[in-house]
């Protein structure tokens, strides 16, 4: 077995892609599938990267992920990945471009720091879904935990069910569409962006206020919910930053344009 070493100098005995995927089809239509049941996290990601980058395959299915952590992270190219099962923490993070479909549930921090692409979760997600999301769509058909989209800087998070407390905490830009109920402290300390809630709101967070829905808002809601096949539990309400805490003495150029 070839042993390689990571950046910290630690041995990585499983640093080679296992090369077990079955590949079917020809040319750009090739599809790959592999069973992750007996693979380590490192091996799963190496196999995925081998297929996507070295083989150039744009359709990969991972079976039996077993709720392992940090699967399908750092994929920076357009491709379609189906994860047939559930993921643990930090799944699909730091991605830029792929469309990922998870048929099960995901743990904390799914799609954190996603730059672009689409992540669709068929069941529930844990806390911190879409943390620091930069772009793309994260769609969760089930419920999500606390602090959804914390520090979100762009993109759209769509939740078919309920969301926990502090949803949209420190939201900086981007949109959240929650079809169900949300817990206490909605939009606490949000800077910008918009949160749409179809169910009940337990309480608003600091500097979060309700706003009128515009025609553009209705268009956005209709379009996103149609794409992901979701619907609200009631009429949507919109929540934005009250800007009472905007005490900047040095504004970024983009913010300066908006404020001044």
């Amino acid at each position, binding site marked *: 077995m070839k042993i390689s070493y990571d950046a910290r100098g630690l041995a990585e005995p499983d640093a080679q892609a296992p090369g077990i995927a079955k590949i079917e089809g020809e040319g750009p239509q090739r599809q790959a599938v592999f069973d992750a049941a007996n693979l380590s996290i490192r091996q799963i990601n190496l196999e995925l990267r081998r297929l996507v980058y070295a083989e150039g395959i744009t359709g990969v299915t991972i079976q039996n992920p*077993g709720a392992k952590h940090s699967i399908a992270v750092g994929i920076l190219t357009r491709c379609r990945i189906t994860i047939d*099962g*559930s993921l*643990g923490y930090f799944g699909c993070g730091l991605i830029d471009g792929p469309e990922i479909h998870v048929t099960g549930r995901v*743990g904390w921090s799914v799609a954190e720091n996603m730059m672009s692409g689409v992540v669709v979760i068929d069941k*529930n997600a844990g*806390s911190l879904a879409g943390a620091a999301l930069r772009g793309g769509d994260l769609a969760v058909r089930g419920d999500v*935990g606390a602090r959804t989209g914390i520090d979100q800087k762009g993109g759209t998070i769509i939740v078919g069910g309920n969301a*926990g*407390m502090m949803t949209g905490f420190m939201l900086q830009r981007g949109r959240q569409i929650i079809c169900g109920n949300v817990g206490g402290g909605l939009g606490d300390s949000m800077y910008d962006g918009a949160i749409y809630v179809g169910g009940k709101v337990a309480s608003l967070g600091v500097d979060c206020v309700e706003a009128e829905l515009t025609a553009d808002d209705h268009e956005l809601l209709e379009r996103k919910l149609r794409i992901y096949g979701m619907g609200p539990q009631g009429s949507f309400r919109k929540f934005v930053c009250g800007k009472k805490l905007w005490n900047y003495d040095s504004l970024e150029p983009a913010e300066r344009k908006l404020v001044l």
Partner: protein
Amino acid sequence: MCGIAGIIHRDGLGDIGSEMTRMLQSMKHRGPDSSGFALYGRPDDLFVMRIKLADPNEERDFGWGDRLERHRNEIEHRLAKIGAMVDVIHSDQEYAYRVTFRYSGDLKPLADYVEDVPGCEVLSLGHSLEIIKDLSDAESVAQRYDLAGFTGTHAIGHVRMATESDVDISGAHPYWAYPFSDIAVVHNGQLTNYHMWRRRLERKGHRFQSECDSEIIAVYLAQKMDDGLSLETAMKQSLDELDGVFTYLVVTADALGMAKDEMAAKPLVLFESPSLVALASEEVAIRAVIGHEIDTYDPYEREVLVWHR
């Protein structure tokens, strides 16, 4: 970080020793310092008491073994003196014992009298609860204490990454709710009003064997139940009276409960079916005991759930 896990068979017995071992071992990365089990076997008329007389990592002199033997004999003597009829004293390790006995008196004086023997700590006491905890990972502890064949109804466990107290058995979870029979707790988080509650409970006559904040929760809940509250009500009160970030699991002779604080900053994933409930800090632990595809969810903030067997 730490990892916690719980399992309850609602319709009979299960291999809870090996099940909890697999659950904890799958979360080894959350806490390599120690592993602990609170296992509920078949309820018996006899009391079962788990004790330790020393720590595995303490300094050993030439008289160490002889001293442990003397202390073990002293415990047997004291149990007889206080009116307990000892059935079996079994040694799992040279410093850890399982004692079964008949006894009809108050547990507090018995526990106090036994713990008065130098180095002795009662890890658990009850008719079905047995707490086994030691240094290293779950598989190693399970092997050393022969937990593979342990059958029972429910269990909780803990893998510990020591942050606020020593790496020793006293600092390892689960914690027995001294001096109350058959109650134990595992906890992931930090309590910020630990010293205040410790002083309050000490004024009520309770003793604490560790400097670990988690020990408070077990005694706090047991005291509430002794005051007449249900387990669920006591747990709900804990959400208001205990400060900090926490998710904890509690077990009694016939129930398993979970509570999550208002910040929901410590994870817990839950699987529930008519015959089995399994919950853990990470879903990999649940999947370690359930082979087929399952639906799971995260309990929300300020959530308290209790399942009875």
